[in-house]
């Protein structure tokens, strides 16, 4: 949330930091011959089916909080990565979208959080179904490097990366696959 140009950030998932094969571009042309590209929703929807499914290139889609995911739902099988945006940490719309995409519509590809990703939200993101986060906030990077997720020992609702706790109420979960 600062005016300073942020570095591109590092990609993080439950297993730790990883290489990001994707470049982000406004259009396919702008991406040149990059083998993996993330395009804004409008541009992505404008692609032909043939281009989307081309085997030599992966094309993911970036969705802003105000944009509807409805048009993507019938096409989920052809999308390698969906990046949901958090323009500010307190804009929570993408959490509900993650829930819908992953848990209601069973998206099998990578679900990614981009934007204002802070340490206090990482655990929430994982639980709603995000696989990866693009992080450029220094404190958050540090904490993630130290595996300090700021998490709690039990959850009061079902979610990804947790399982039913035995001998307790149906809505409760404990961390772990």
């Amino acid at each position: 949330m600062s005016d300073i140009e942020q570095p591109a950030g590092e990609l993080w998932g439950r297993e730790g930091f990883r290489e990001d094969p994707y470049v982000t571009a406004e259009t396919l042309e702008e991406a040149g011959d990059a083998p993996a590209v993330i395009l804004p929703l409008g541009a992505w929807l404008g692609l032909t089916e043939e281009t989307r499914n081309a085997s030599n290139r992966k094309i993911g889609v970036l969705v802003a909080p105000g944009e509807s995911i409805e048009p993507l739902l019938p096409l989920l099988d052809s999308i390698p990565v969906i990046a949901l945006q958090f323009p500010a940490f307190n804009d929570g719309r993408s959490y509900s979208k993650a829930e819908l995409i992953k848990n209601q519509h069973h998206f099998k590809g990578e679900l990614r959080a981009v934007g204002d990703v802070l340490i206090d939200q990482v655990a929430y993101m994982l639980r709603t179904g995000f696989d990866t986060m693009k992080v450029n906030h220094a404190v958050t990077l540090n904490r993630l490097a130290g595996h300090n997720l700021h998490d709690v020992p039990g959850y009061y609702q079902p979610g990804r990366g947790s399982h039913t706790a035995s001998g307790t109420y149906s809505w409760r979960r404990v961390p772990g696959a």
Partner: protein
Amino acid sequence: MYRYDEFDHAFVSARVEQFKDQVERRLSGELTEEQFRPLRLMNGVYLQLHAYMLRVAVPYGTLSSRQMHKLAHIARRYDRGYGHFTTRQNIQYNWPALKDIPAVLDELASVEMHALQTSGNCIRNVTADHFAGAAADEVGDPRPYAEILRQWSSMHPEFSYLPRKFKIAVTGADRDRAAIQVHDIGLHLKKNEAGELGFAVYVGGGQGRTPMVAKKIRDFLPVEDLLTYTTAIVRVYNLSGRRDNKYKARIKILVHETGTEEITRQIEAEWQAIKETDLKLPQEDVDAIDTYFAPPNLVQRPEGWSGLAAARKADHAFSAWVDQNVTPHKNPDYGVVTISLKPIGGIPGDATDAQMDLVADIAEKFSYDEIRVSHEQNLVLPHVAIADLRIVYDLLLTDGLATANAGLITDIISCPGLDYCALATARSIPVAQRISERFGNPERQADIGELKLKISGCINACGHHHVGHIGILGVEKKGEELYQISLGGSGDEICTIGDITGRGFSSEEIVDAIETIVDRYLEIRTDKEETFLATYRRVGAAPFKDALYSEVANAA
């Protein structure tokens, strides 16, 4: 009442540890106030006019004696010897030092309490009828459902960054004492024709600058669907609620702008998709939570009735207190006692450490260890034997807690206003105190009868003025505090937003203006049985406006 199990203990202590770390980082300067803000808010810590304020959750208003003793201890040790009970069934401490707050949270955790989700754009402390589990008119105890909602909404990963705060209230009686129709979601526990329990579901009520009465979107929702249906509502809100303007961000605006029919359609569609998921409540879980709220094993005390008549005859003040502050209990040998935190001329909702300790002691001996906090800023002893009323009254009397004014004009709800609140545009506590003094005479107030007077120090309406039979809103105009009056509001089952009478009154005029309204009511009521609200509903605003504006014009 609900008791923490290991799961709850581990959860709360993990949160306290995290907050300790954050406070240390703030005190060492590693975190700026701006970075610290969202973190402290998640733990109920506000920055107010004079100091940090800590808001402690009292889920659905239920407290044990042990917990009340702890609240007293915190007031004594970490604050200035008092706490403020609020319309949200919470308690606020106005003067804790930031460095002490982690210790306060530890103390709270030791009695199964916390300050989580008392702030921020999340699902807030769930409120309920303060007579729950005791009132004679109850269909079912709303608290087990409030507890299930409390658990389910705690650190909800999807719903912690909603467009705005989100308040849920539950009632279990036809007589609504929890003001459910001015909440984001209101749930009315009831039975269907087959005798099964379920909820009428209301959505989109609220106060603030755009007061709205909630819309009923479902007449009967089976209990097993409580969490799936609530999830559907909050999800639709999270996705579509406005985020461009914080004054238009509550669900009431979404419901209003989308239309009740369309929003209901969206909620029902989302619900169909998740109805059969893991959140569908198994009956055994509902039963398990329910057992925590099983009524205490009340000893039969039939002897109370004969003694009561004599005691009342002997002491008029005691008799008035019984009339005003004791309501019928499910068990005819018992009564529900309201402890007024509105002494004549006092600060509504404030209680000293000694008063809290006294209430805790009385509850332990005479109310099966239970205390309630009401949204009317009073305390309640839910299970007092009629036979013990006299001794309870005498004990309350020793520390100014036996004011016989529950539901009367001096039982004023008032927000903290300019004396504490950073958002205030006017003082509210001093106005409440002056009105209380003006009408303090016991015979006079009893003659006026039921009259709910509510005051807010700004348009945010924390003092519920929109639903006051008489509401007072403090505003600032050209550097002067001005008080606007509204009439005919009501937060019960026939919920209405009050009508503004006209131009506001200065701080000097406001008490006279209230008296003018009350006098006019006394003149025009059909008889003593016709309450202020009933009279207003019969005659409308005109007679009151006439009285107000002609008289003041004459005086000027």
